[in-house]
């Protein structure tokens, strides 16, 4: 049994799986049940300025039979009174002293507002704070959430104000609705953040109903943009985590969020620099019990690799994430088709012929249809392997390059010395 305990900027939890601030952490009843199910921590549904929610709130994008490939919401922060939440946090912390409870906060960008709320939540014994600079809708129209989170100066200043009075670690939750998330991450660090978390939801409109022409979701015939989450956003979130992890100015721990649905996703985020992960949509789709498989899966993975502590995988893949200009132009892989396994659906041939490099030939051998890759024309793009429906029918294999490794940056530097 590997040691799954994590320490994120001083916040300790029995495992790296936290529920993200969202409907699953709306109340003490839910968070306590989540802890019983095995979740290591919970970021409480954001506390802050008074709001009201609308009905309906959610929509999902299902794709080719996969339910909830992506999830869209127009829900705001908590609509329950602060005192009720504080009382429930107090009770939950008393029952689960070793689990992490983080208070997510969002107030107007004013020093006294941040001071007031930080003091109130710390008084009931939270283990840390998460400043919500990410909510993309509603709150942003009032100058909070993503509206604050898109302005580096405001991120820095508000983090600083929270830190002025905070006695527990401050995590700054960043919005992905920005061109370069490292800019706001750096601003958070300059403001004194002990950690950053990412991502909040991505601006989205789930769809338009082709019969009624209403937006999906709609509120009595009108819609507003929402925030996208779930499996579909994982690659975007993973890249943002990785970009922050490899940025020397973002030298604080990262809590990874966005599309994490199983232990594999969690391990990937941790390898790319996250000290722990937060989950929302997958828990909303399948319930709290998904954490059991997450814990077992991660445990087995670490045991199989002979790794004693989950903290030992944090950031192990970061140095492998580089700039395009530092990739070897002469590294070569090609597709190889195993005709024993191939079912001759010809998807690879069609994909290659229509949209790639026309290097998969159809031929017959003893009356049997076969496929073969013309290696000299294959650029190793992976498309055929991606569209192939049969495991093991197409492998991408390395070929020794006859020319020495050279990156684009190295090439440009050599060429520039021969310019006039």
């Amino acid at each position, binding site marked *: 049994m590997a040691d799954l305990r994590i320490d994120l900027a001083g916040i300790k939890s029995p495992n790296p799986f936290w529920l993200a601030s969202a409907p699953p952490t709306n109340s003490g009843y839910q968070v306590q049940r989540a802890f019983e199910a095995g979740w290591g921590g919970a970021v409480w549904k954001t506390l802050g300025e008074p709001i009201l929610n609308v009905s309906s709130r959610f929509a999902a994008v299902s794709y080719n039979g996969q339910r909830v490939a992506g999830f869209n919401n127009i829900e705001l922060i908590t609509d329950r009174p602060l005192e009720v939440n504080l009382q429930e946090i107090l009770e939950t912390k008393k029952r689960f002293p070793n689990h992490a409870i983080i208070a997510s906060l969002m107030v107007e960008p004013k020093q006294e507002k941040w001071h007031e709320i930080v003091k109130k939540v710390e008084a009931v014994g939270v283990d840390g704070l998460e400043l919500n600079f990410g909510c993309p809708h509603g709150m942003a129209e009032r100058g909070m959430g993503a509206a604050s989170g898109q302005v580096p100066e405001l991120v820095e200043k508000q983090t600083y104000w929270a830190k002025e009075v905070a006695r527990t670690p401050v995590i700054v939750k960043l919005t992905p609705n920005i061109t370069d998330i490292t800019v706001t991450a750096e601003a958070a660090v300059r403001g004194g953040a002990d950690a950053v978390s990412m991502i909040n939801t991505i601006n989205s409109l789930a769809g338009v109903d082709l019969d009624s022409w209403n937006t999906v979701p709609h509120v009595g015939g009108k819609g507003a943009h929402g925030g996208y989450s779930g499996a579909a956003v994982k690659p975007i979130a993973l890249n943002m985590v990785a970009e922050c992890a490899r940025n020397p100015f973002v030298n604080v721990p990262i809590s990874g969020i966005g599309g994490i649905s199983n232990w594999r996703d969690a391990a990937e985020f941790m390898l790319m620099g996250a000290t722990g992960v937060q989950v929302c949509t997958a828990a909303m789709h399948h319930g709290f019990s998904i954490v059991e498989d997450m814990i077992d899966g991660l445990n087995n993975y670490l045991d199989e690799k002979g790794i004693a502590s989950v903290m030992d995988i944090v950031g192990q893949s970061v140095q492998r994430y580089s700039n395009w200009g530092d990739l070897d132009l002469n590294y070569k892989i090609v597709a190889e088709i195993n005709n024993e396994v191939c079912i001759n659906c010809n998807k690879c041939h069609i994909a290659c012929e229509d949209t790639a490099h026309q290097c998969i030939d159809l031929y017959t051998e003893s009356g049997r249809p076969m496929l073969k890759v013309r290696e000299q024309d294959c650029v190793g793009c992976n498309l055929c392997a991606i569209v192939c429906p049969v495991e093991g029918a197409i492998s991408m294999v390395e070929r020794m390059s006859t020319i020495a490794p*050279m990156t684009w940056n190295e*090439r440009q530097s050599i060429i520039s010395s*021969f*310019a006039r």
Partner: protein
Amino acid sequence: MSDHLLSKDEMKKVDDYLDRGFKVHYVYENLSGMFVEFNRQEEEVCLQILTADARKYFAAKLQEQTLLQEGMSI
């Protein structure tokens, strides 16, 4: 001609010039490809390289020439 054959042909031209003692003295790239000026004493030739593979190959050769000129072993 297929891209592959064209690139082989272009690589061969690069090799030919280098084997015949030509040295690269000027290189530039634009939207039409890579242009390489080789010279040998008074003689000067310009080669246009179109294919991506040959442009990669040429860069490797250029690196070899540079290292040799700097007296380093390759």
